[in-house]
């Protein structure tokens, strides 16, 4: 009876939902623990400057947590590992170096893009050149999002690659299957909108669910190449 229940579809769905909730909460704890704790404290005006710097540690943990979540989901999907906490932490430490490199690169790219976006956004109605600049900036942002999504997958599936090669592969994957990339982007957008409207979704699924979609949508393609690479480079 119990065996039948564990094999049922309902059990698997709830089991997966539980895993995603745990991963989401752990991502929040890993990247937003300090701001969360800080928000609980009644701050005296003397320490208000802390509000400006409290998010800085997030830079060191957010991308590694996301990479770790992807790696954990990937491991579960491929049948390599079915634990959550321990695997998350192992993956966190294993991918930390490469994730930090990605964080730094993203930060370097994000600063000029943010500047470009704000400038062109305010001037876009004034001349055609500004409008073109605005459109180009938006396009560039979309391209970077596409590449970043696949970069996370590439570094988790194919370890030991040089970062430049990982970038090249991510770009290849992203634009070879442009429909898949758009689908993933749509999943992220939907999750973002729901998270904005519903705080429970934000806490329970906002990060892990779109990442699950990311892994699930790309699984067949990555798995095929992953299996071949594993066989050839044991």
């Amino acid at each position, binding site marked *: 009876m119990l065996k039948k229940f564990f094999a049922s579809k309902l059990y698997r769905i709830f089991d997966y939902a539980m895993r995603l909730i745990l991963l989401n909460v752990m991502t929040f704890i890993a990247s937003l623990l300090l701001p969360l704790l800080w928000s609980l404290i009644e701050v005296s005006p003397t320490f208000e400057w802390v509000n400006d710097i409290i998010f800085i540690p997030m830079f060191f943990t957010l991308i590694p947590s996301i990479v770790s979540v992807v790696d954990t989901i990937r491991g579960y999907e491929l049948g390599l590992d079915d634990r959550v906490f321990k695997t998350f932490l192992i993956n966190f430490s294993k991918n930390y170096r490469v994730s930090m490199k990605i964080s730094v690169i993203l930060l370097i790219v994000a600063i000029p893009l943010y500047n470009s976006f704000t400038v062109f956004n305010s001037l876009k109605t004034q001349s055609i050149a500004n409008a073109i600049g605005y459109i180009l900036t938006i396009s560039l942002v979309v391209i970077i999002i596409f590449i970043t999504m696949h970069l996370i997958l590439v570094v988790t599936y194919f370890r030991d690659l040089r970062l430049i*090669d990982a970038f090249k*592969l991510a770009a290849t994957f992203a634009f070879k299957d442009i429909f898949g990339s758009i689908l993933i982007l749509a999943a992220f957008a939907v999750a973002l909108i729901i998270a904005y409207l519903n705080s429970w979704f934000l806490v329970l699924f906002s990060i892990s669910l779109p990442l699950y979609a990311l892994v699930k949508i790309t699984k067949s393609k990555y798995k095929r190449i992953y299996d*071949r690479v594993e066989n050839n480079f044991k």
Partner: protein
Amino acid sequence: MTKDNKFQNLKKAAIDKYNYIKEDLSNPLHRAVKLQKVSDKAVAILRAVIIFGLAFIIIFPIFQQISLAFRHPADLNDSTIVWIPKQWSLINFEISIKFLNYWKSLWNNIRVSTIVTICQIACTSLAGYAFARLRFKGSNILFWLIMLTLIIPPQAFAVSRMLFFSDFDIFGIFAALRGSDRGLTIGGAGKDGVFYLLSLTGQGVKSALFVYLFRQFFRGLPLELEESAQIDGAGILRTFWSVMLPNARGVVTTVALFAFVWQWNDVYYTQLLGVNDDKTFPLLTMQLLKGAEWAQALLNLTGLNIVDGESQTDPKFTALIVNTAAFISMLPLLLAYLFVQRLFVEGIERTGIVG
């Protein structure tokens, strides 16, 4: 191994791995398979969108009609009601049944459509068989002349047809028999025989199409079937009746369905030949045509006190009654469709036409 060597080896392994993956990704076979998969998916999505859209376009008005039919006139101006009425009512049906003279019209429609269908099958199957198998001089020209009646709109020869039927004669036989200088006047109120005559002479609704369908089907049947029947001593009519027609069951069903539905919905011929008579021989489509004025006049003149005065003068209410009348006019066909759905779909698939 020195630290430098170890680093070089790792780097080489990483580059090899990258090259391998890159090569795999640019494999033309994989690309072709993927392209095929993507195009298959795209086609499936497109097909689903088109089918869903078409289904929506067709089904949506029917659901709306049903929802409106059961709505009480008092709910008409309530903008909060979209689909489910607040007050369910059969008043619209009662009024529609009265102004359509429904039961009598329904019986007339069933009778006319059934007899016309039988006549159409009898005539067009024979004509189709003749064009398919019996070769005579000018048969092809005759066939394409018949096909021409499909292309030329019936309105183009409405006047000539009217004149023809108002003085119908064959070599002056009818005039001589009647002792008059004029032939028979075919058509007129209550004279449904004109429909049967038209169908039997291959001039019914879309008869040419049915002739074409039968001809194509009979041409596809193997000659050996006929030859074996002829060896057994069967003549042309016997071969047609005992060999060809039993094999053409599929086409007969298709023609029967379309002939019935098209005759049921026919307005043009009924109006042209003036067959409809409101009292003695009402037909559903013609009754419906008079829709709005009739409904209004009936309410005003007979003083049916089933709705309050304000609703009676509301044009929306009149539209509601006409809508319900249209719904109950097509209801028998809808109900019949539920039972002969498979045949109907097969018919459309076989012929590629939509009723």
